[in-house]
């Protein structure tokens, strides 16, 4: 293999598993380090710059970082990254001196944002400091979009949401709330320099062809609409017997909300096996802990109506089968239909995009899936000054992806308004700083804690089931937050190898607890992986290769389970290993 080019910023970025997995590439280890030092303001600021909604995401993020966390490769559970984000938000001081300055004198460019969700708000936050005039249109009476109307308060208290949304609006967004945009053309005609569409995937899927659907009438609800109705108190009660159809997070939100609206029995029914459910494992766990059974492998057959009233549903039992080519699919079993009594059904079987306000004559090209045709990097549509982001861009994803889209769209809009090439994008800023302090010490806490993942305390179950506004999770205390933070393996502190001073004494090889380092003859990757001291079968993780050493061998380090404990650097007599903190910050709009 060729020697590793550690000057490529993506090499060490990839070693920071959590940051790399995060769509917004939040510098996770750095904010966790700030938390462990009690610097909550700094921790919050790092988050806010990168993901805009630390308090919200610290509660409801899909957390792609956690399955990626290195810790889960050396013990059972990843660091509770998401909950630590909340720690930063919970304990930061009330001031907001981290906010960037917004110039009083505008740059003369006007931007319209359609939809007031996380994607649009991110665009607003990134463009306002650059002097743009930003108009935001939303059909609700408060901005926030999906996270306001569909995420129940027991998971995300309104106060937290308001604080984070208002922080952006107060930077100087011109809001047009309660304003349904029913014609994009009208907005185009207002002469904006650029338009950003962040209208989400607003339509919940129905089952219109299922027998009994129309007779079932108002006992059958679309999950997301029902959740919004609960928020606005149009719905204050739930039927005594509720069936919730679907296996995603909306389904979990529906069933738990129903339980809080006095439903006596709530049951979730899913088509597929439980293991294939789309909902996050922790959401499923929370629902089950609240006494909500989840029945899998049942596909809906019909709504059963008796004297004009919904009395239950029939389901077909399904089973997962693997066909000849190894593809798994669901097939009905031969068993007779199963009847489940109910008087209310909530449909949470998926969400779809809808752009009823986009007139065909505008000429925005759409794909077969009903989504806009976009440049995946720039988010630009076929109309140069119209951009899309969030769920409206590539279909339903999650909040953190919407934020990442917002950042990219803001960069594009800024480049566009300055008449520059949208593909000539600003580069990430990186930095590599030695962690050596004196002869023996390191600037970071290199000890590897053996603590197991801490559980987040929750409020009394009986109380929380009576009050849908009462947040279930209490968040970590400062102390537990500190302990959990200490589990972080500091993956941003890199092991840097200088082959020119190495005397091949083997000290690093001998001390490394994970046997990451091998000195051996070079070969191609596949061959090398079979010749390392420890099994090396995680191909997602890079091998760090040095140029040839005096004995002709090379140093090979498998990054996979490195604990970043710094012992190699400590034991090296010639300081050929050095621990250096690698900072990787995504570019934001306006940077060069």
């Amino acid at each position, binding site marked *: 293999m060729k020697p590793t080019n550690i000057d490529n910023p993506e090499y060490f970025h990839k070693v920071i598993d959590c940051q790399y997995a995060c769509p917004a590439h939040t510098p996770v280890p750095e904010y966790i380090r700030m938390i462990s030092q009690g610097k909550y303001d700094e921790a919050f600021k790092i988050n806010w710059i990168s993901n805009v909604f630390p308090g919200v995401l610290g509660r409801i993020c899909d957390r792609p970082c956690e399955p990626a966390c290195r810790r889960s*490769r*050396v*013990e059972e559970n990843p660091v509770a990254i998401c909950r630590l984000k909340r720690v930063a938000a919970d304990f930061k001081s009330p001031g907001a001196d981290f906010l960037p300055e917004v110039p009083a004198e505008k740059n003369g460019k006007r931007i319209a944002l359609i939809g007031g969700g996380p994607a649009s708000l991110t665009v607003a936050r990134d463009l306002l400091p650059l002097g743009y005039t930003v108009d935001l249109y939303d059909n609700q009476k408060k901005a926030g979009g999906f996270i306001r109307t569909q995420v129940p308060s027991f998971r995300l208290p309104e106060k937290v949401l308001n604080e984070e949304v208002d922080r952006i609006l107060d930077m100087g967004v011109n809001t047009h709330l309660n304003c349904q945009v029913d014609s994009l053309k009208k907005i185009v005609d207002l002469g904006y320099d650029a338009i950003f569409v962040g209208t989400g995937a607003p339509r919940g899927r129905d089952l219109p062809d299922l027998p009994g659907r129309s007779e079932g009438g108002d006992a059958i609800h679309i999950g997301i609409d029902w959740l919004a109705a609960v928020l606005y108190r149009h719905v204050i009660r739930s039927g005594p017997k509720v069936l919730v159809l679907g296996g995603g997070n909306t389904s979990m939100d529906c069933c738990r909300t129903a339980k809080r609206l006095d439903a006596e029995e709530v049951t979730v029914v899913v088509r597929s096996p439980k293991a294939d459910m789309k909902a996050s494992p922790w959401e499923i766990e929370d629902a089950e802990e609240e006494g909500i059974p989840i029945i899998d492998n049942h596909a809906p057959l019909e709504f059963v109506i008796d004297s004009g009233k919904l009395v239950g549903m029939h389901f077909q039992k399904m089973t997962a089968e693997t066909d000849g080519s190894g593809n798994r699919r669901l097939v009905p079993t031969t068993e007779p239909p199963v009847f489940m009594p109910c008087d209310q059904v909530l449909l949470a079987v998926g969400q779809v995009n809808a752009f009823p306000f986009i007139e065909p004559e505008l000429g925005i090209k759409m794909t077969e899936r009903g989504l806009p045709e976009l440049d995946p990097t720039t988010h630009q549509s076929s109309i140069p000054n119209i951009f899309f982001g969030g769920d409206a861009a590539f279909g339903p994803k999650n909040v953190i992806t919407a934020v990442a889209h917002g950042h990219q769209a803001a960069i594009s809009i800024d480049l566009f308004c300055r008449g520059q090439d949208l593909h000539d994008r600003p580069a990430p800023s990186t930095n590599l700083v030695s962690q050596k302090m004196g002869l*023996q010490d390191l600037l970071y806490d*290199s*000890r*590897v804690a*053996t603590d197991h993942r801490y559980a987040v305390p929750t409020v009394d179950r009986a109380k929380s089931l009576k009050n849908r506004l009462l947040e279930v999770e209490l968040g970590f205390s400062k102390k537990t937050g500190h302990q959990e933070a200490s589990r972080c393996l500091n993956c941003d502190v890199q092991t840097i190898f200088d082959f020119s001073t190495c*005397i*091949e*004494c*083997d*000290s690093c*090889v*001998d*001390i490394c*607890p*994970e*046997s990451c380092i091998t000195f051996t003859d070079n070969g191609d990757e596949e061959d090398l992986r079979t010749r390392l001291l*420890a*099994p090396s*079968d995680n191909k997602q993780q890079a091998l760090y290769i040095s140029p040839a050493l*005096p*004995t002709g061998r090379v140093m090979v380090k498998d990054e996979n*389970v490195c*604990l970043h*404990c*710094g*012992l190699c650097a*400590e*034991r*090296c*007599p*010639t300081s050929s290993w050095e621990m250096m903190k690698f900072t990787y910050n995504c570019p934001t709009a306006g940077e060069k």
Partner: protein
Amino acid sequence: MSTDRPSFRHPQAARNTAGFTRKDYEGAISTLCAGCGHDSATNAIIQACFELAIEPHRVAKMSGIGCSSKTPAYFLGRSHGFNSVHGRMPSVATGANMANRDLLYIGISGDGDTASIGMGQFAHALRRNLNLNYICMNNGCYGLTKGQDSATADRGSAGKKGVPNPYSAIDLCELAIELGASYVARGFSGDKQQLVPLIKGAFAHSGLAFIDIISPCVTFNNTATSTKSYEYVREHIEATNTFDFIPLQQEILAHYPEGTSQEVVMHDGSIIHLHKTDAGRDVTNRRKAVDSLEEEKAKGRLLTGLLYVNQNIMETHDIINSTLRPLNSLTEADLCPGNTALQKINAGLR
């Protein structure tokens, strides 16, 4: 400096046939200087024990005084051990060995500990062919007391102080062959590929197995003018032979062309297969073994590898015909012949 090592080990760390992982053979974290050759030698011992699936509680580690003699703290944390006084490792090992011949004895010493203060002890352990694995971590200096030249320092070699050593050097391997050791090898801490099999061969051998491990002292004797530095040793090393150690019951898979290899069957039935670079060399011939060492020395080369092995010299227990059982398992009935026997003896003396 770290005073402990993270407790995590590689999630797919291998287990040996006795069910242990390598971690089960580790000891406390080393307090030696970063880069000390002794740490590598220590790790070679750990590796050999792991690969041979030795049960840690069947091992006793003995040592004298020195940085080298501290290393038993850094390996086999679950074994028996005795850190004795300077140069006295052989006596303590002899005592323990006499009391229980069933354990595996690893004696750790340094060049100061062996070739100066402990020379008399060393000589007699060799002479008796004590069933001991005598490992000398040889750095050509007294590391622990700040790097004075030891008796193995080559004439003219200069350490950190910069004063060339005026005396001639003792070659511990030659001495060991001369004085009756039955397994003599030399390795280099910087070459585990060679060192680990040498240690495994020693463990399989019955009788005194002496391994001289050239083990650089990075702090006091790793200078450009020293003949025991990493660089000098790497440049002047000459391997007698490479070899495969094949433990008992393991199938021999390699094919050895005639005349290029020599097979030595160890007491426990394991086999050492030597691949010779020079057909004239015979490691079972004492004179030739010494000749080889001298020849290479004359060329300015340092001969390493398995230098000498003789399976026919009896170990101490067999020479003195001692009991096969550990002394602590002998009961009064075993030890006291009884009144009738005493009367008989007394009668014979009247």
